[in-house]
């Protein structure tokens, strides 16, 4: 521990934060919302999980309806809680990955992963950084995700995305890493979430919690759908969409390629979002999100961002993946001319059009799309224009939306100093290392407004800390 260190904080991607920081960020964001913005409604941090309630009911349903069928008819992806989908995906991955097929116990799995990763590290120093960037590649705007790379790379690499940043820091303490990795599992995270003050929250970033079906659809559409006129608007074949849906629901390995129809895949993605038991932006935050349009235009973006920080990680990660796709689609809305002078047809789906279509899927307060829930259409009309404008704003500001501003990071660290002083230094050290190993271009946004957290006396108890904001 060095005394008098200073670390410049700049906006960092939300997904680079450790689990501990993300949980704390929810508190900080909530405090900030209440303090800075008057959204004229009660705001709470959405519950992480309404776990198994729904799925139990479905189990009963499927048992009574289809007694003849296999017991495994419970859907694996559609119409079940997001956290459940993600946990099913993990099981699926374990089952389909020949490398780890024999492992059933999660800790065994982690041991093997640990082993592999440290081997990789020894073999190639570069790998760990390229590895960590792989986990966030698809979030980087303008950079088309590389499904081929991701697919050909051994799955362990992608799994390696869990927390590669920290392996360098921690490889002398394997047990701690092991513990940390295990804690990053979403199920564990869910349990930890209940005891919010538990100090054992992982110091590592949580692995990207995006359902397989969402990821595959997004990758496919980015590859084949950007020039499709009316993508997401034009209809699809109900039959083929149902087939695809069933394949995902049965937990099959699904490959989307040129043989599939763009409109079918687009419809599948919409259907997944629409059928979520709790909408992606959550029912709890419905009114708060809607009310952001009552704020001054200049305040809206920050309010939307703070609300987004309240979401459970699986919701915000999935939202990020989706908005990445939507902003890319919107960039291809107009006709354009390519390098050879050929005209490229635009898809005509501007951010407003996309928001019109996705808004009601992401933000609604209906209990369930299938239930008889009579909503008066007149009251709805106004709200739906608010929904659209919020979602349009999200698409348009996608690039900055998921960057945690320096002042918020600072608040998170300050708040951690009070409860978990011993981890702050570690987190700062990692931020510094990450900053060095991944130098950002001087023009990249964020550097323009650095804040400096100055640790005057970095004693074990960090009682005297001066925080300087340098503008």
């Amino acid at each position, binding site marked *: 521990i060095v005394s008098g260190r200073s670390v410049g904080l700049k906006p960092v991607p939300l997904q680079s934060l450790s689990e501990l920081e993300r949980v704390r960020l929810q508190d900080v964001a909530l405090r900030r919302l209440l303090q800075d913005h008057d959204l004229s409604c009660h705001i709470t941090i959405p519950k992480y999980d309404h776990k198994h309630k729904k799925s139990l009911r479905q189990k009963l349903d499927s048992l009574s309806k289809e007694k003849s069928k296999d017991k495994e008819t419970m859907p694996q992806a559609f119409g079940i809680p997001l956290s459940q989908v993600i946990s099913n995906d993990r099981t699926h991955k374990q089952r389909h990955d020949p490398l780890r097929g024999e492992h059933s116990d999660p800790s065994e799995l982690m041991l093997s992963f640990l082993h592999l990763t440290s081997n990789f590290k020894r073999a190639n120093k570069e790998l760990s950084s390229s590895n960590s960037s792989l986990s966030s590649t698809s979030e980087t705007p303008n950079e088309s995700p590389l499904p081929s790379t991701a697919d050909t790379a051994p799955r362990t690499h992608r799994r390696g995305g869990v927390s590669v940043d920290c392996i360098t820091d921690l490889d002398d303490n394997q047990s701690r890493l092991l513990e940390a990795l295990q804690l990053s599992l979403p199920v564990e995270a869910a349990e930890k979430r209940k005891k919010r003050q538990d100090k054992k929250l992982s110091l590592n970033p949580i692995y990207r919690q995006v359902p397989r079906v969402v990821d595959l659809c997004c990758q496919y559409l980015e590859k084949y759908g950007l020039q499709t006129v*009316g993508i*997401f*608007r*034009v*209809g*699809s*074949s*109900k039959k083929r969409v149902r087939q695809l849906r069933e394949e995902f629901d049965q937990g099959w390995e699904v490959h989307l390629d040129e043989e599939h129809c763009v*409109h079918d895949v687009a419809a599948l993605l*919409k259907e997944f979002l*629409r059928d979520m038991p709790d909408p992606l932006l959550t029912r709890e935050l419905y009114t708060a999100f809607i009310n952001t349009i009552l704020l001054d235009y200049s305040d809206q973006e920050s309010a939307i961002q703070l609300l987004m920080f309240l979401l459970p990680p699986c919701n915000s990660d999935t939202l990020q993946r989706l908005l990445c796709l939507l902003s890319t689609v919107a960039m291809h809305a107009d006709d354009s001319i390519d390098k050879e002078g050929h005209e490229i047809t635009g898809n*005509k*789906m501007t951010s*407003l*059009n996309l928001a*019109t*279509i996705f*808004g*009601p*899927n992401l933000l*609604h307060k*209906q209990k369930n*799309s*299938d*239930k*008889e*829930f*009579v*909503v008066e*259409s007149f009251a*709805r*009309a106004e709200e*739906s*224009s608010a929904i*659209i404008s919020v979602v349009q704003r999200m698409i348009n500001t996608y690039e900055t939306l998921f960057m945690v501003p320096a002042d918020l990071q600072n608040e998170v660290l300050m708040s951690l100093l009070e409860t978990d002083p011993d981890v702050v230094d570690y987190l700062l050290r990692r931020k510094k290392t990450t900053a060095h190993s991944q130098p950002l271009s001087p023009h990249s946004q964020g550097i323009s407004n650095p804040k400096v957290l100055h640790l005057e006396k970095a004693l074990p108890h960090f009682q005297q800390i001066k925080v300087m904001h340098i503008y």
Partner: protein
Amino acid sequence: MPEQSNDYRVVVFGAGGVGKSSLVLRFVKGTFRDTYIPTVEDTYRQVISCDKSVCTLQITDTTGSHQFPAMQRLSISKGHAFILVYSITSKQSLEELKPIYQQVLAIKGNVEAIPIMLVGNKSDETQREVETKDGEAQANQWKCAFMETSAKTNHNVTELFQELLNLDKKRNMSLNIDGKRSGKQSRAERLKGKCSVM
């Protein structure tokens, strides 16, 4: 059951991008926009004559791009008459009307007393995927009326709405009020022949 108000409610259904809003806007405002904007849900009102009195024709333009089944059911149960629109340039868009028709059937029971018009829009387009006879055959099967229209060239648009009102045998409705023709409806004299009621 539709509530007893003085409104006569027409609901327009169809897949995304077939021209539902264009048809409605052409009829209500007499304009055509060559833009590409999806609809959430819009309702337009217009006064018409009904049984020697006047009533409000309420046209609900629905979304084609995301169906929340509950909302669809709500529109159907409230509607008196239905326009099912597809684009003659897309076989798929005709396919997509089938579940909607089934839904109307399920909610309304006997559809024979319910005015339903199957509409092949974009008749000005040259890249046809659905022949007129295919549309007619579908309408035959559904025992409903059929018409091809173009909101762009204003072909058969007013006729569509007038015919739909004529299909309602319980009421005697007309777009004309007291024999006076409003500006929009003066076009109704043209092109009467294209409409066939099955």
